[in-house]
């Protein structure tokens, strides 16, 4: 029983460490708000709607991607 409580004690202490740390923040609260907003814009807006993985979304296999790139680089060459 005491071993089990010891097992749970460390994660609980780590959790409390972070919880108290966040609670006591002053300027940090504003900074976390900015970080959250920035990450939301970056991943939920920009990544999703403006930055698709071009080869990932337009081709389904690596062979198709390799063929497309080969076509691009051999077709682009100076004649």
């Amino acid at each position, binding site marked *: 029983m005491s071993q089990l409580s010891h097992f749970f004690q460390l994660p609980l202490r780590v959790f409390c460490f*972070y919880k108290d740390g*966040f609670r006591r923040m002053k300027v940090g609260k504003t900074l976390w708000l900015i*970080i959250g907003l920035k990450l939301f814009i970056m991943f939920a807006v*920009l990544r999703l709607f*403006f930055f698709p993985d071009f080869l*990932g979304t337009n081709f389904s296999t690596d062979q198709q991607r390799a063929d497309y790139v*080969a076509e691009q*680089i*051999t077709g682009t060459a100076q004649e």
Partner: protein
Amino acid sequence: MEIDLASVNWAQAQFALTALYHWLFVPITLGLSFLCAFFESIYVKTGSKEWKRLTHFWMTLFGINFAIGVATGIILEFEFGTNWSTYSWMMGDIFGAPLAIEGIAAFFLEATFFAVMFFGWNRVSKGFHLFATWMVAIGSSLSALWILVANGWMQNPVGMRFNPDTVRFEMENFFAVISNPVAISKFTHTTTSSFVVGACFVISISCWYLLRKKHVRMAKRSIAVAATFGFIAAIATAVTGDESGYDVAVYQPMKLAAVEGLYDGHEGQAIVAFGILNPDKKPGVEGPEFTYEIAIPKGLSFLATRTLNGFVPGINDLVYGNPEHNVMGAVEKIEKGKLAVAALKDLKAAAKEGDDAAKAEALTRFEANSDYMGWGYMKDPVDAVPSVPTAFYSFHYMVYVGSFIIFAMFLFLIFSRRGSMDRHVWLQLLGLLCFPLMYAASELGWVVAEVGRQPWVMQGRLLTDVAATKIDAGHVQATFFIFLVLFTALAIAEVSIMIKQINLGPEAE
């Protein structure tokens, strides 16, 4: 196939904007993290409450800079997939490895100890807190190491071979990639110069306090530590800059010729200490390189060859060739490159038709010229020349400021030792100037590195134009302006939070 230059230009502009914006935060993080570690070490050694307050103050500014800057580098990775898909496909096998290591190392090392650094005051032992602060500093520099290994590989591709079947450069020797001389000199020069940026940040803010006669004791102590660190780092920056220049001469001679405005190379080549470029001077066109110049005899030969009379090729030598000095020009490389690209085309066609004999023959032709493949895409040999004015003036600004900072740091060190920093307004004004000057030099260092290597995205192997995705220029243009608005908003947020915190100063006793 025609390349949409508008799309490429906007993609380049977007990448430059993102990289330069990201670089606003990185040098402060690299430099200030070590200064925080020094400040806290003194606190732990002396047990003085004043050093604790001082450490806490600079750590708060470090945290603001870190928080606003965090994850701005990830945007560059978005751009790789969308705007630079050919590049990502061809280089991903090698370029992705150091970036992945950086991501994992940064997460585990920085994120873990970062929490202890900020939340752990009075909650963990002094020794463990100090250990966490040092780990954040070391972790930040290790993150930079992996990014610069990736960048160094683009400047000097080593440890790989091109696989025509997968159309990818595949890693053959990881050790060669991480011990690439360009990556090493890039890492040492970038980190030492960032330490100077961090020192200038502390000195400028401290001098502002001295000018306003606020927090005088804290400001003087901060300057004493920052000037010591900054002086050593500024000298190290000059030494690593010299080594970096030597590597550029060996692996990217066109970049060296551009930063020096050198068109016709000579033995015992002088280095231009100050010069105004002749705007009419072009490759293959007669006429002086400068309208005014002050040169140091044999200086460039010494930097580039470590001998006083070594030959340093100029732009014309590198474009048209110089058989006397065994310099192969862009003209000849383009011919070889065209043979490589034609062989690759035949190889892919033979593979499609299942003609093994034709494939083997094409492969032999390809491998004979594969080192020049990238040159096969160049329309005109003159396209091998980067923007000389941008490279030349950016480089020279960097050198002037670097030299000035050594002298300034020396003065701060001397006057700090005498304890008279608060009695000389001229010195405080000089200190105030250091940060913006050094910040601009740090940014321009990247301009030299990246504009100087154009037209290549991967030196000698892949042209920037070819590396770009064939997408609508309007799409890239739109995201450019979205970033511009986002970055401006974040920059305003950082500056206003930072100014507010500086005005508040350290916590009251």
